């Protein structure tokens, strides 16, 4: 049977990287169909149709689905679920909101945050903040799955799938969208960036966090933060890397003033190269870092920024 992928949308635009990684996880399981549901989402449907390995895009252009509200989108997915054995989405906050609802309506267990597909019923997923990896086999007829994007390579955008416009009579009466407060940024998105520079409690204040941002901008990197830095108000919530924040796996991860609590390590341990800068030589982050510098971050970070300015220009 075919696989249904719930496209990750940002407004009415396709979040291509996240969706392409979900397609990558799904392509071994059957013919891949992608569902785009939002107002004015024909552009998103066209982007999804280009993803290699996608056989068909279902596009439903309706304001009911416009703000990613879980109740109508879950009803929509359930309404077309007969044709699918697997229902898959990237493990973003948006899909984490919707998929368990879909699973419960179908009376199946949701399988969240998978890091590997073993076969069509069997998947690997991290538990205990990534301190253990569990292999689970589903006995349900339908499998509802979210995919940890850091573990899958995005498929190329070289396909040309058909787009089928569909309709639904679904209405939304349980909840109402009021406002989104999303900061605009020129930096790459945290979960898909090639490099990430993160600051922790050691950075000391939100004004000093500018130093982290400066280094990130020099590297063309996204900016992340530890939970301690977010809780202290140095950085906004959506920068948090860790078990309960975002999981990243860039080519280069620079941890500045981050001690390396297991909850943080869970969010970045699969990065290719990890650099740690910390005053405490015994900080646990050094046990995971490829390269560490023990010292005052207020001296090292500006020097490093300066050095990259020289070598990268």
């Amino acid at each position: 049977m075919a696989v249904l992928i719930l496209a990750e949308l940002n407004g009415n635009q396709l979040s291509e990287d996240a969706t392409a990684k979900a397609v990558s996880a799904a392509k071994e399981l059957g013919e891949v169909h992608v569902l785009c549901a939002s107002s004015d989402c024909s552009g998103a449907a066209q982007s999804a149709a280009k993803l290699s390995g996608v056989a068909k895009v279902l596009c439903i252009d309706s304001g009911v689905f416009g703000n990613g509200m879980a109740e109508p989108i879950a009803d929509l997915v359930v309404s077309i679920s007969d044709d699918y054995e697997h229902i898959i989405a990237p493990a973003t906050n948006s899909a984490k909101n919707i998929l368990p609802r879909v699973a419960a309506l179908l009376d199946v267990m949701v399988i969240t945050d998978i890091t590997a597909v073993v076969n069509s019923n069997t998947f690997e997923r991290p538990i205990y903040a990534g301190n253990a990896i569990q292999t689970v086999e589903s006995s349900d007829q339908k499998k509802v799955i979210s995919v940890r994007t850091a573990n899958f390579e995005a498929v190329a955008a070289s396909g040309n799938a058909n787009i089928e416009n569909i309709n639904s009579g679904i209405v939304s009466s349980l909840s109402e969208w009021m406002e989104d407060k999303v900061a605009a940024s020129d930096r790459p998105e945290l979960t898909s960036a090639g490099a990430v520079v993160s600051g922790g409690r050691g950075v000391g204040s939100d004004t000093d966090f500018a130093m982290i941002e400066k280094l990130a901008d020099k590297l063309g990197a996204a900016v992340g933060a530890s939970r301690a830095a977010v809780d202290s108000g140095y950085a906004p919530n959506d920068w948090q890397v860790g078990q309960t924040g975002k999981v990243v796996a860039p080519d280069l991860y620079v941890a500045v003033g981050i001690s390396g609590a297991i909850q943080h390590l869970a969010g970045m341990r699969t990065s290719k190269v990890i650099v740690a800068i910390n005053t405490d030589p015994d900080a646990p982050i050094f046990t995971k870092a490829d390269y560490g510098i023990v010292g005052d971050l207020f001296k090292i970070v500006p020097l490093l920024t300066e050095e990259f300015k020289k070598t990268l220009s």
Partner: protein
Amino acid sequence: MKVLVPVKRVIDYNVKVRVKADGAGVDLANVKMSMNPFDEIAVEEAIRLKEAGKVDEVVVVSIGVEKAQETLRTALAMGADRAILVVATDDVHNDIEPLAVAKILKKIVEKEEPGIVICGKQAIDNDLNATGQMLSALLGWSQATFASELSIEGDKAIVTREVDGGLQTIKVNLPSVVTVDLRLNEPRYASLPNIMKAKKKPLDVVNAEDLGVDVSPRLKIKNTGEPEARAAGIKVGSVDELVEKLKEMGAV
């Protein structure tokens, strides 16, 4: 209005997890167990709603082994009024899946008729992040997940949610299921007098079978292993050396 708060007994946040060598799971025998940290935030929020006069009663419920009584007592000591324990297994290693938990909670909700259910967004053991959404679906209620702000206004709740790029505010019809994120509040510590008082608060015990819910798992755990180890690297002496190494590796 009544608020229902499900709480889970999990391995303590600070305990180092030990994976059993035979792949059978994580060793939970003789390790410190505590209330799931997200559930503490949910209990705190419920108590604050009561203190603000928005709700009249805070009922906490836990599903699992008999020892989850301790977790319920903690919630009572924080300020919850009453507790319900649903005994669903006698083995602490037998984690009841969110779908079964949601079905049990649905039965409790039908009996207790709360105006709102507030729960943690995920448990730090299985990290599934599913129970609240599943319960909401089974009840046909609205849902507001990952809340960082919650206010009740008449028959609606206004919830600010942590979403991928920032924050989102939604208005949901009550009754509703709200799941809480880290930054909603800072849970209080129970004082000694309140811990003593909590021992006298009502705690009902029921069995999952008596509620007519099948708790057998849908997911068979084939193996539990250690994550791939990451070897510690080297400490470099200077920024120049670091930049050189990164260039050698092609990382910049």
